């Protein structure tokens, strides 16, 4: 049971967002800018960073909701996403994206864990300042969203296939113009 009385039937972050629409609005606007606006990192790459950080934070709802989106954008299967979580070095991703995932993993531990060497490596592989900025902020933002979802002990469907089936719909509707109840 959730720690507070939330509107029923809404999984994960959707319950607290319906409970408190005033804070939901800027939270969704932030997700829209970070994960969907024009960017040299693709939507799929950004959703993958969000999925990876959510896995490190052990947030079931977020890692599956964003995993479903990453899978949709990258046109990959669940095994691919799961392998990224276990050992992204062994997965067929660009070296640049691997360097950004390493930075995201350090942010998850704490801001001071990001090392100049990690930044230099990412830059040497072609990462721009904006890409590094966005990786750090996406990772930091999911350290918030994950804690919001689990800190209130929200409910989440356990069947992972549900999230994958929802991926295309979530990709089409985005984060600012959608019905929490659908």
């Amino acid at each position, binding site marked *: 049971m959730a*720690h*507070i*009385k939330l509107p029923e039937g809404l999984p994960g972050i959707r319950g*607290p967002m319906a*409970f*408190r629409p*005033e*804070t939901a*609005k*800027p*939270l969704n*606007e*932030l997700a*829209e*800018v*970070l994960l969907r*606006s024009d960017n040299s990192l693709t939507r799929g790459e950004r959703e993958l960073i969000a999925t990876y950080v959510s896995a490190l*934070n*052990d*947030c079931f709802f977020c890692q599956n909701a964003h995993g479903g989106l990453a899978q949709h954008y990258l046109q990959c299967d669940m095994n691919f996403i799961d392998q990224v979580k276990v050992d992204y070095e062994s997965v067929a991703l660009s070296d640049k994206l691997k360097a950004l995932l390493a*930075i995201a993993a*350090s*942010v998850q531990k*704490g*801001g*001071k864990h*990001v090392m*100049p060497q990690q*930044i230099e490596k990412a830059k040497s592989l072609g990462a721009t*300042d904006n890409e*590094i*900025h966005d990786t*750090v*902020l996406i*990772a*930091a*933002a999911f*350290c*918030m*969203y*994950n*804690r*919001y*979802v*689990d*800190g*209130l*002990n929200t409910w989440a469907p356990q069947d992972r296939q549900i999230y994958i089936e929802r991926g295309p719909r979530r990709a089409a509707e985005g984060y600012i113009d959608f019905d929490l109840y659908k």
Partner: protein
Amino acid sequence: MSKPHISIPEGLPGIRGLLSLRPDVAKPLSAFMEVLMRDENVLSRGERELIATYVSHLNNCFFCEQAHGGVTQYYLQCSSDFIQKIKSDLSEADISDKLKSLLRIAGSVVKGGKHVTSQQVEEAKLLGATDLEIHDVVLIAAAFCMFNRYTDGLNTWAPAETEFYTARAAQVAREGYSIKSST
């Protein structure tokens, strides 16, 4: 002093340089801060700033801890020793039991969402905390787990003197967190 990990406009400390660099993210982040930290709420602005300060302290983020500590001092009309006592020995601090229970929940959120226990929430409710207050404490604590990582993850610069932050607190309290005051 080591330099920031990316090129940031000079002269703006902490998160302010980042917000100046990226108005696209500054917009939702500023709007979020206004709602969370300043809008009408059963938790006073001072209490909310204290929660932000406490979380920033646990996350070892000097800029956020000092900036929000300064604003807390302004709202609560207290000394830096008062805030220091809360950080170092919460159970003995001179604040209400309800606020202590909310700060304990915030401390658990810092460790991770699943660290918040039903017992902590029950204790806060017994001491009079409403669902809305518990929601807001969890979200403020979670939000500062973001802001702290954003500020330190890009290795931003921060003034070392605490007077810088206390001197600026009245202005922050007056102007709020809207974008124009972030530069």
